[in-house]
């Protein structure tokens, strides 16, 4: 398994341990604090069904090398999509030219930090699964959605699969590789009832084989959810505006954690002291009921990695423990500059991007409350169970996340569905208002993509049912 990426790049591009050592030892060696070479080969496939047929099918191959040299706080990065050795050497020269000016120290040998995990070895990666079976599945999604309700007007089903082979090498001589499968099925339906029209979307996936969608009839459940959500929204009333008690359902609403605390705990912002959480390690930033972890080691999850994109094995990192801020998410550069441990969170979108601290699977541990009791205890509030995207201003801590499925809670009962509304809060404060935590922790279905500084990476989130005593809901109903 681990030999595979090395052999892959040696066979296909003639890049073997010897050539890489020469490159790193020659062009990059010397007065830099860290240098590495990242090789990547990616095949991806996208199949889109609409109006009853697969009208869009595309396959892409991308390959390239990224070379990085760092000294002090400076990073030189160069990349090329031509994997011929002279091109990589030229990239290495450019990267080093930037980094090696004012450096004071010699190369710090960075050891491989333990063996990589084995979280997603598959007998048949999803990209290699039979095309006919994939097309057939999309056809079944279409038929299923239309059979569920006559108001279903349009069905768009997308199946994406990819396989990424990476190899990371440093001058201290170690290389580590990974082969990363990933797949996702998304179902979007448009429903119409008279003049009203609505949209519903649902999906899932992970670092799993194609059969994942067939097991337990997942495809059927995703389709049913998309239809149910769209129909529910047809009857939605205007969402309320202003501060109120908010109950979040389990699973995907964990996007709250991703925006409210996750980004603010990334090492780069904290080293630069531009995060609302800067300098707050050891302080209380949440209620005692709240423990938040970022765990890149969960089997077959979308946000999991055997090693991060700097070759560091991923870990389970406790960010907040019973309300106390315990740790940041680190890559090599920021951990070195902050004198802290690497945490296996150095990630990049592709060879065309330098790594930075990113989340993997971020979730809150389960509590003890019965979810139904949590709702029963609310006189007037909002119960939000599905969300679109979210965003955060790291520096002042303000974050938003947009509910796509939400209901009013009136006298302890979930009543009418309301239109989509944005929820807004302040990261360091929002979790201090968590007063109930359910025992029903759920991870999301495997659809999340996180954007930072122009780089997108797959991530996961998770949450048990929780009650937040006060939060601003951005509806229209005053």
């Amino acid at each position, binding site marked *: 398994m681990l030999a595979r990426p090395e052999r892959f790049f040696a066979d296909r591009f003639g890049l073997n341990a010897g050539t890489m050592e020469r490159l790193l030892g020659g062009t990059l060696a010397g007065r830099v604090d860290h240098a590495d070479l990242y090789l990547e080969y990616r095949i991806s496939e*996208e199949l889109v069904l*609409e109006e*009853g*047929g697969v*009208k*869009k099918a*595309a*396959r*892409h*191959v*991308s*390959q*390239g090398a990224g070379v990085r040299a760092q000294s*002090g706080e*400076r*990073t030189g*990065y*160069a*990349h090329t*999509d*031509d994997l011929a050795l002279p*091109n990589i050497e030229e990239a290495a020269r450019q990267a080093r030219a*930037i980094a090696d000016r004012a450096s004071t120290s010699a190369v710090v040998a960075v050891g491989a930090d333990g063996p990589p995990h084995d979280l997603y070895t598959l007998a048949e990666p999803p990209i290699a699964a039979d*095309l*006919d079976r994939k*097309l057939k599945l999309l056809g079944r999604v279409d038929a299923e959605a239309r059979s569920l309700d006559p108001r279903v*007007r*349009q069905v768009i089903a997308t199946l994406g699969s990819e396989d990424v082979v990476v190899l990371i090498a440093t001058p201290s001589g170690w290389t580590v590789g990974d082969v990363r499968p990933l797949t996702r099925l998304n179902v979007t339906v*448009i429903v119409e009832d008279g003049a009203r*029209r*609505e*949209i519903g979307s649902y999906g899932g996936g992970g670092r799993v084989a194609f059969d994942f969608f067939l097991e337990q009839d997942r495809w059927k459940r995703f389709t049913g959810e998309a239809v149910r959500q769209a129909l529910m929204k047809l009857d939605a009333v205007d*969402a309320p*505006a202003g*501060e109120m008690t908010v109950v979040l359902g389990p699973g995907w609403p964990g996007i709250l954690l991703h925006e409210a605390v996750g980004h603010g705990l990334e090492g780069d912002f904290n080293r*630069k002291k*531009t995060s*609302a959480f800067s300098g707050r390690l050891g302080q209380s930033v949440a209620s005692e009921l709240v423990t938040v972890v970022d765990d890149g080691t969960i089997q077959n999850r979308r946000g999991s990695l055997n090693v991060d994109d700097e070759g560091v094995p991923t870990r389970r990192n406790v960010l907040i423990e019973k309300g106390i801020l315990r740790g940041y998410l680190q890559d090599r550069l920021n951990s070195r500059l902050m004198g802290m441990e690497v945490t296996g969170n150095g990630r990049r979108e592709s060879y065309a991007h*330098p790594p930075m601290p990113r989340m993997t699977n971020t979730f809150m541990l389960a509590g003890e409350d019965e979810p139904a009791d949590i709702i029963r205890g609310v006189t007037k509030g909002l119960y939000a169970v599905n969300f*679109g*995207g*979210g*965003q*955060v201003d790291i*520096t*002042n801590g*303000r974050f*938003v996340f*947009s509910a796509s499925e939400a209901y009013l809670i009136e006298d302890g009962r979930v009543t009418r569905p309301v*239109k989509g*509304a*944005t929820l*807004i809060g302040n990261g360091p404060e929002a979790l201090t208002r968590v007063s109930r935590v359910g025992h029903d922790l759920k991870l999301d279905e495997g659809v999340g993509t996180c954007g930072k500084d122009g780089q997108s990476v797959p991530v996961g989130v998770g949450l048990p049912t929780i009650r937040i005593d006060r939060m*601003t*809901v*951005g*509806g*229209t*109903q*005053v």
Partner: protein
Amino acid sequence: MRELLAGLLQQATRRGATSADAFVVEDQSFSAQVRLGQVDTVKHAREQHMALRVFVGKSVAAASTSDLSRESVTRLVDEAVSLARVTSPDEMGGLPEAAELARQVPDLDLHDPRGHDLSPEEKIDLARRCEAAALEADPRITNSEGGDFSDRRARYAYATSHGFTGEYATSSFSLAVSPVAAANGEMQRDSWYHIARKRARLDAPEEIGRIAARRTLRRLGARRVKTAEVPVIFDPDMAATLVRHIAGAASGPALYRRASFLVGKLGERIAAPSVTIVDDGTMPGALGSRPFDGEGLPVRRTVLVEQGGLRSYLLDTYSGRKLGLPSTHHAARDGSGVSVSTTNLHLQAGDRDPADLIRSVKNGLYVTELIGFGVNGVTGDYSRGAVGLWIDNGELAYPVEEITIAGNLLDMFHAVEGIGNDLVFRDRTAAPTLLIGRMTVAGS
């Protein structure tokens, strides 16, 4: 590049494609980030990729690769053709009629070859000057996310199996800075930027730095406000985001999928009579201009909304055929196929001085930043996080944060009560200051 494309199309036809189109892009980019006066990250890149779309009868498929070797080209053709054999036939598919293709490729002055002739040190220095101007503007500017300079040059060539070949080169240059201000335990970040096709037209780094500092400083002391229905003024950059939502709803793929709040609204009034929205791909030297669209059709000026009435959708050939309308030449080509994109999209300037618009509001919100994704393109329902300044008796009184603004895009455009005379093209989409009569602001 032309030979590569010609060979690719020939090979596709030999392998069984009834028609095909393809493009190649080569680009070179550089970016430098300086933080607190020190070089932080410098990136160099050289990239290329090619993409092929083939039709086998009425079925279509696409493939792309960044490997331009002979073997890779053969693999690309094989993959595209074999994929197209299994996808569903579509009567509406196919290339545009040959007669519609652009006959010539106009020179829109999108390239600045000499602009790139700066050493890395000189480029780094531009980023440094930009950040320094922000840091020096005020002692409360204590930190920074960095000053950035980047430039990119690209060559794009496109060809079809029915005779179109065109290519053009583009340049772009950008400068940006994100200062951080702190006072009384509060920390705020804002930013300012400029992007241009010619380096000489970039705003001076010092000017960008000073504006970024001013924008950041005015956020200090931010408060929350009470939930209320009030008039809302969008600054030009935020007004441009509203124009983008209209363009998204007017785009062909959203319409034939019935996933748009503008379905069936062609010819109807969708905005106040003062609103005219234009997309003009022919503006020389502009960021959104292109000499031909993603299917080789000549780019032109399209009036999308004229005095409040929806005059045109934004269509490529396929979505046009689905809707029984001709393409409006808004095709955008990417590795997966054809979609729709705007060029230089803008809301036409009005006659109001922006300061007058502010003075006309007794109690309301001036929005300078929006976050989140709370826009439903199917219904037009709108709810986003906002940052800005509260207007009290016609004056920008104090900064506000942790609030949302909500409404419905159609209601909002009908409620436009004033349009500024301050239209400036700083990006591909531009708008002047916009006053919307009433929205819900949710706060404490």
